[in-house]
Structure formats: structure tokens, C-alpha cells
């Protein structure tokens, strides 16, 4: 009998929660519009290959040899040919003003020295304010200059003796949408569940409806379950929508099984909802809940390996990434979608996610009940 009753009250709480969410059109819009918008921007905007670096030229030599060198410099698309200056200081000015990010300077006498196999003094000046771009630019430029016998040990001409054939696995053309999608999805689910849950519960407390529900025979655990379930549903719908959109518009492959993704998403949502409840439990207003949720979300995002790889973090920080549910979820998504990894390959991540999810949700429910009594 009590089981039937519990199920009935669970269903009622769910119905209330659904109605509340759907009633506010704007909220519904946010839940649907923001994933689509985010995916589109990430898919189109994010081109991490550094190329087409705007470069100005200062060719003081003006000989066929120097023109050939300039031509060759812009042959692959790493650098993009920009304005031509006659004197080096105005080329440097362009860097200062931000009109260009690199300058190729060929001094007078280049052709003569090159003909004598004397190390010609070509210089590439690079704007270091954007460190990533500067690194790529300087690597490309030094490789180029070395190949043209500039700047190496005097007298040594590089024979193209050793070469390295790179092959990109799983994402041959390095399309950003493909490797960004798991991170986008993880962020999105976190946003939809953690923030919404934290603020929603705080609102119930602020407006006093929480007390009203507690005087009914509904038990706190049932109440929380009823509040969580609709968001798990929304979350899974978002997963489906993003995967479908990614597949249709951006050709994101789907090499693994849907079961693995569904299980991963389910476990991940456990932990994010738990975090939402936890934050609502310790905060006394919606403002606090919002700030708390954001304060959690940002480090979680940063430490998940979504934006910057975990292997280049300092050693002391790396263990903390294991505590981030997002990290494991992203690894599961990347493994399953792109590499076709099965449940056996992803067992460590799944176990970690299960432990974190059940642990966080359990702690949050206990704290919530204690806070109420």
C-alpha cells in the first residue's frame, strides 16, 4: 500500500514540476534554444588550427631571390600575406597597432649572401600576446627558415633526410564540431540540471512552497526524486537532440552503442542533480544558489579537459580532475562517439561516474533531510 502511495505522490510531484517548467515559455525556450545555439557556434566558430596569421612584409632586398622566399613563406596557409612596408620600423608598428601578428623582414643583401651560402639574415617578428598563436607561428617559421638554410649551423644544408608522416585518427580532418560536441553536451547538461535544480529548490524555499509540501504526507526523498526525474528526462532529450543535430549538420560520427551513451548520461545527471540539491541545501536565497552553482560549474568545466588538455595541467592539479564527473562523461562520449569504444574500454570511467553520482546524490539527500528536520 505504502509503495503505491509513494509512487502516486512521486508522480504528483513530477506532474507539478513539469507543469511549472512548461508554463514559463521563456524557460522552455532557454532549455531548447541554448543547446542548439551553443552547438552551432561551437561547430562553426571554433577553428583551433592556427592558420592565416596576418603577416606584413618588409622586403628591403627586392631581388628575385627574396621574392621567391616571400612567395614560399606564404605557400602553405599558415601565414596570410598582408601589407608591404619599405622600412622595418613601420612593419613593427603594424604589430604594435595589432594590424598584423607577424612580420617577415628581409634585409638588403639577402640574395648576395644566400648565393655565397653565407647565413642570410632573414628575420620573423611575432606578436607574443596570443601565446598559442605565437607558438604555432614560431614553430612554422623556424621550420621554414631551417628548410631554406637560414639560421641553422653555418654550412650545413638540411638534406630532407628524416620525415614524419602524421596521421590523425578518429577525426581525420580535425573538425572542431566533432571534438567539441562532447564538452558542449556535458556543459549543457550541467547547466540545465545543476543551476536549474539549485535555483528551483531555493525558490521553493523563498516563496514558502517547500513548507507547504512538507506538511503533506510526501516524504522528502520522494519529493526530491519527483523533482529530479523531469530534469533527467529533459537532459536525455537534450542528449538526443544534440547528437541528432551534430550528426545531421556537422557529421559527428556515431561509432559506439547508444546504450553506453545513455548509461553514461544517466549516471552523469545523477551527479549534476546531486550538486544542484547540495547547493540549494546550503544557500538561503536564489542569488546565493546561482552564484554557488556558477562557482562550481566553472572549475568543473576547466578541470574536465574540455578546453585545455589534462596532460598539460600541473601535476598537483591533475588528481583533482578525477573528482570531476564532467571529465569522465567527456571521456565516455569521446570514446563512444568517435572511437567506437565499448563498455569494456570505458569501464573505469563508468565506475568512477557511478561512484561520484551515487555518492554526491546520496550525500545531498541526507543533508537536505537533515536541514529540513
Amino acid at each position, binding site marked *: 500500500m505504502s509503495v503505491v502511495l509513494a509512487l502516486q505522490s512521486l508522480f504528483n510531484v513530477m506532474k507539478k514540476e513539469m507543469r511549472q517548467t512548461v508554463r*514559463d515559455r521563456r*524557460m522552455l525556450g*532557454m532549455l531548447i*534554444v*541554448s543547446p542548439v545555439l551553443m552547438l552551432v*557556434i561551437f561547430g562553426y*566558430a571554433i*577553428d*583551433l588550427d592556427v592558420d592565416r*596569421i596576418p603577416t606584413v612584409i618588409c622586403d628591403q632586398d627586392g631581388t628575385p631571390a627574396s621574392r621567391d622566399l616571400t612567395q614560399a613563406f606564404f605557400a602553405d596557409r599558415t601565414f596570410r600575406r598582408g601589407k608591404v612596408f619599405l622600412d622595418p620600423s613601420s612593419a*613593427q608598428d603594424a604589430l*604594435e597597432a*595589432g594590424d598584423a601578428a607577424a612580420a617577415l623582414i628581409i634585409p638588403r643583401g639577402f640574395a648576395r649572401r644566400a648565393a655565397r651560402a653565407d647565413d642570410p639574415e632573414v*628575420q*620573423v617578428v*611575432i606578436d607574443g*600576446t596570443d*601565446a*598559442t598563436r*605565437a607558438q*604555432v607561428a614560431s614553430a612554422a*617559421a*623556424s*621550420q621554414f627558415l*631551417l628548410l631554406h638554410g*637560414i639560421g*641553422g*649551423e653555418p654550412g650545413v644544408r*638540411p638534406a*630532407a*633526410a*628524416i*620525415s*614524419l*608522416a*602524421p*596521421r590523425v*585518427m578518429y577525426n581525420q580532418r580535425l573538425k572542431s564540431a*566533432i*571534438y567539441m560536441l562532447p564538452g558542449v553536451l556535458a556543459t549543457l547538461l550541467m*547547466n540545465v540540471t545543476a*543551476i536549474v535544480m539549485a*535555483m528551483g529548490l531555493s*525558490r521553493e524555499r523563498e516563496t514558502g512552497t517547500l513548507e507547504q509540501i512538507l506538511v503533506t504526507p510526501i516524504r522528502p526523498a520522494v519529493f526530491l526524486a519527483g523533482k529530479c526525474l523531469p530534469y533527467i528526462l529533459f537532459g536525455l532529450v537534450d542528449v538526443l537532440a544534440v547528437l541528432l543535430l551534430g550528426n545531421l549538420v556537422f557529421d559527428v560520427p556515431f561509432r559506439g552503442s547508444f546504450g553506453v551513451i545513455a548509461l553514461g548520461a544517466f549516471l552523469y545527471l545523477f551527479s549534476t542533480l546531486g550538486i544542484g540539491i547540495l547547493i540549494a541545501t546550503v544557500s538561503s*536565497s536564489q*542569488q546565493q544558489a*546561482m*552564484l554557488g552553482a*556558477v*562557482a562550481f560549474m*566553472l572549475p568543473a568545466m576547466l*578541470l574536465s579537459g574540455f578546453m*585545455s*588538455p589534462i*596532460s*598539460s*595541467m*600541473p601535476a598537483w592539479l591533475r588528481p583533482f580532475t578525477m573528482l570531476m564527473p564532467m571529465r569522465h562523461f567527456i571521456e565516455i562520449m569521446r*570514446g563512444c562517439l568517435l572511437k567506437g569504444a565499448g563498455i569494456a*574500454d570505458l569501464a573505469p570511467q563508468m565506475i568512477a561516474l557511478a561512484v561520484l553520482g551515487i555518492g554526491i546524490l546520496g550525500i545531498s539527500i541526507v543533508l537536505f533531510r537533515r536541514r529540513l528536520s
Partner: protein
Amino acid sequence: MNRFLRRTWAVAHKEVLHILRDARAVYLALGLPVVMLMLFGYGISQDIDHVPMAVVDQDRTPASRRLCQALVAGSDFVREVDLASPDDAEAALRSGRVKAVLIVPLDYGRALARGLPAQAQILVDGSDGTTATIAMGDAAGIVTALSAARAVRSSLNAGPRIRVRFNPAMRSAYNMVSGVIVLILAMVASLLTALTISREWERGTMEQLFATPVSRLEIVMGKLIPYTGLGFVQTLLVLTLGSYLFDIPIRGSLGTLFVCSMLFLLAMLGTGLIASIVAKSQLVAVQFALMVAYMPVAMLSGFMFPIENMPLWLQGIAHAVPGRYYLTTLRGVLLKGNGFARLGEETMALAIFAVGLLAVAVWRFRRRLA
């Protein structure tokens, strides 16, 4: 005029009481930027190094060992495991244990000894595109250097002919910190104001305010003033801590920095106000603010992803992101030593955004009441 000031002051005073009553929110608002700054600055490095790599050395000659050594020497790669055959490479990549596999074929050393070209292969994991791109570039650079009979020492660092200005060591903290400052201010400032007006709607206190002779402009201005103060403290905190902790030089004019920071702050507070006015509930206002203030700054300001590489239509949209102009200003003032002379355009753009967004806030507020 006198009355206008008095009423604005009254609204501001009420808002200050609201803020002070919720002391924890103030701590969070001031603590959040600091935590973010530390995390980004210390933890997140865009210098891609220590890429875990597996090695399949089928050749086992001094030459092949030299190649493996060269890749590991500059700490760009870490030799995680040695695999017996190329068939194991796929499994190692799929499990995510390594991000790259170097395969040296059987006759590599012999070919080199005979003066013939030799080729090795590197497989990179494209599911992490950032690492893949940079790792490939690094590896190619190292191999070229090795091939040019140059010592391993200059694996990636530019040769003598390459000069990097403004940030010679190419420390990613330099560009990280300026980007993080923009990101933090955009988010915290817009979230601060996002709740103020929606909260009054939600609680029904807005009707009470309307029963008083306070006008719409006075409400908006009054709400703006305390948050400008709080935002100003945040800005100072982030700028001083950022430049102090990470040794970021301030080479340019402090005046320009101050003016542009204030303008950007006002623009972001205005965005938050608009979110607050348009949304009915606090929850929606927060989501809206995150979507219009935080996301564009994170993705379209040029902080993480270069604007030149975006498709043209997105470059157009990027012109409407205030954070972009502020980022240029910050980098200009901090690293390049610029002042108003060079940054006039950016300052103008920020001023237009600040005035425009605040005007829209007042205008939308009026319309909702009619």
C-alpha cells in the same frame, strides 16, 4: 534635478541594504573572480606539452632511439609505454591512455645509414583536436630540427632569426590572464544585475515601487549605482591580483585601462539589467544573462579561438561583442604599452556599448509598464 538625485539615491540605498543583508552573496561575488583567476592562471595552460605517447620501435637502432629521444627531450611528449607491434597502437589510443603513437618502421636506421630518406609515422588522437594539432606541429618541428643536424636543444623554440615581441617566452599566462579578466567581469557583472529587477517582479515588490513617485529611469539608475561600486571593486581586485600573481607587466597608460574597464563594466551591467527586465523570473534571467553575456565573450571575443579563423558571418557577429574590444584594450595596455592614441577605436566602441545597452534597459523597462 534635486528630486531626481534624491530618489535615485533612495533606490540605491535600498539596493545597498539588499546587498549587505545577503553577505554570503557578496563574499561569493568577490571570491568567485579570485578563484577563477587562480584556476585559469595556474591550472589551465594552453602550452600543450607532456602529451602521453606510446612508442613502437620496430627498428631498434641507435638512429631510431635518437628519434624517440628527440621527441621526448623537449618535454613536449612523454613516453608512456612501449608497444611491440603497430597493431596495439589502435587499442592504446582507444582506451585514451595515450594521445599519440610514434611508429618507427623496420628499415629506418638502415636507410639513414645509406644516406637515403627515412620516414617514421606518428598517429595522433583527433578526438582531442587541440592536442592533436599542436602535437603534430611540435613533432614536425622537432623532426625537421633533427634532420637539419641541429642539436635537440632547439626543439620548438624559435631559431635565432625569430623574435617574439611583447611576450618573448610565449607564456600562455600572459594571454590567459587578460582573457580571464574579460570573462570574469562579463560574467560576474551581468549575473549581479540579472537578479535585481526580476527578483522584484517575482516577489511582487515591484508594484509597491510603482506606487511611489519614483520614475523608471530613477529605478534603473538607482539599481545600477551600487552594483557599479561592487563591480568596480571586482575589477580592481582582478586587475591587481592578475598582474601581481602572474607577473603581468602594465606597460601602457593606467588611465586608458581605467576608462575602458569602467565602460566595459557598465556595458555588462546593462546586459544584466536587460536580462532582468525581459525575464519574468530570476531563473530565466540567469540563463538569459549567461547566454547573452558570458557565452559570446567566451567564444567570440578572440580569447580562446582566433577571430580571423571564423567564417565571415560569425566575424560580423563578433563585432557586436563588447568583450572583444575590451580584450584588445587589455592586451594593448598590459603587454604592448598602448594608450588612447592606439586604442581610440576600441574605447569608442566600448563607450557606445555602455550607453546603448543602458539606454535599451531603460527603454525596455518603460515599455513593459505601459
